[in-house]
């Protein structure tokens, strides 16, 4: 039975800036998966652990964060801080007996690069393999 996972993406304002060009039409043209819901944040360093957990409570099967390259964050250490919070969520998922990979961090350059769509597809494929979240 096919399963289309509900995936939530929290993306850095800068990394996703070009992705929103033409009201998101460019993303559609590049086959950005429709099951991925994107929330743009001013900086991924602003993301709190609870925001990611609430996404799981809200029914997400997988949650991922896309921030600037770790050594090139617009806000210096924002994406590094985000990565630590994602890691805390991964650790908590492990404690709850779930696959840690339901939460992931990606570092991508600014602008609309193929990788932005690639990681969305990667998450979709991987979470589809894992199956629905038990939450």
């Amino acid at each position, binding site marked *: 039975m096919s399963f289309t996972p509900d995936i939530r993406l929290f993306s850095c304002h800068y990394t996703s800036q070009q992705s929103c060009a033409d009201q998101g039409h460019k993303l559609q043209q590049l086959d950005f998966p429709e099951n991925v819901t994107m929330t743009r944040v001013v900086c991924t360093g602003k993301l709190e652990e*609870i925001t990611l*957990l609430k996404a799981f409570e809200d029914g997400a099967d997988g949650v991922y964060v896309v921030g600037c390259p770790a050594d090139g964050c617009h806000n210096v250490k924002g994406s590094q801080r985000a990565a630590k919070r994602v890691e805390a969520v991964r650790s908590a998922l492990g404690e*709850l*007996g779930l696959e840690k990979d339901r939460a992931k961090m990606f570092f991508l350059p600014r602008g609309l690069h193929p990788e932005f769509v690639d990681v969305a597809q990667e998450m979709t494929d991987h979470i589809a393999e894992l199956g629905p979240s038990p*939450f």
Partner: protein
Amino acid sequence: MIIAERKPLAEIIEMVQDCKKILVLACRGCVTVCSAGGEREAEILASLIRLGLKKAGKSAEVSDASLVRQCDKEYINGIDQFKDQYDAIVSTACGVGVNFIANLRPDDNVFPALNTTFFGGSSEQGIWTEQCAGCGDCVLHLTGGLCPVARCAKSLMNGPCGGSVDGRCEIDAEVNCIWQMIYDRMGRLQRQEELFASAPICDWSTAGHGGPRKQVREDLTV
């Protein structure tokens, strides 16, 4: 301050598995500063308890709130505002807070969310180290301000022992030998000769070995 860390989730979820209304109660004192049990951590824990119970096929109302501190009667009285909103409290305070709730709320279930670990300070962001053992008979005036009770693995009063090698303790090469540090510091202070005096056999009765401790300040009692 008092340092603590969250217990494993499985342990916490087992404590509350049969509860229907759970209040995760934060403390805005020491455990907020060491990022173990403040408002942010209580909100996270409430979410994790909801997820953990749901995964186990159970459901409960899990809310979170906070008190200024959980180690004073007047603040514990603040629990009254949550009356009828819980059948169990999960306290993210240190062990003192959990005890105070148990003392003052004889009919309430209270569970600890944290393991209280030590009295310490933050040596750098995200890192806390033990500095004081609360032994009740401070000798810091004799040791240049560095505590041999808390920071020597053997709590030696006449150190160092033979396990001190190149300034490190035999228990772990990452751990400084506090007696080496005391010796060096007293040298810098030109007080090294004071260390030739032998400390007498220690009376540990003030350190909790004489039972639970109590302190009364008559000038403050009413």
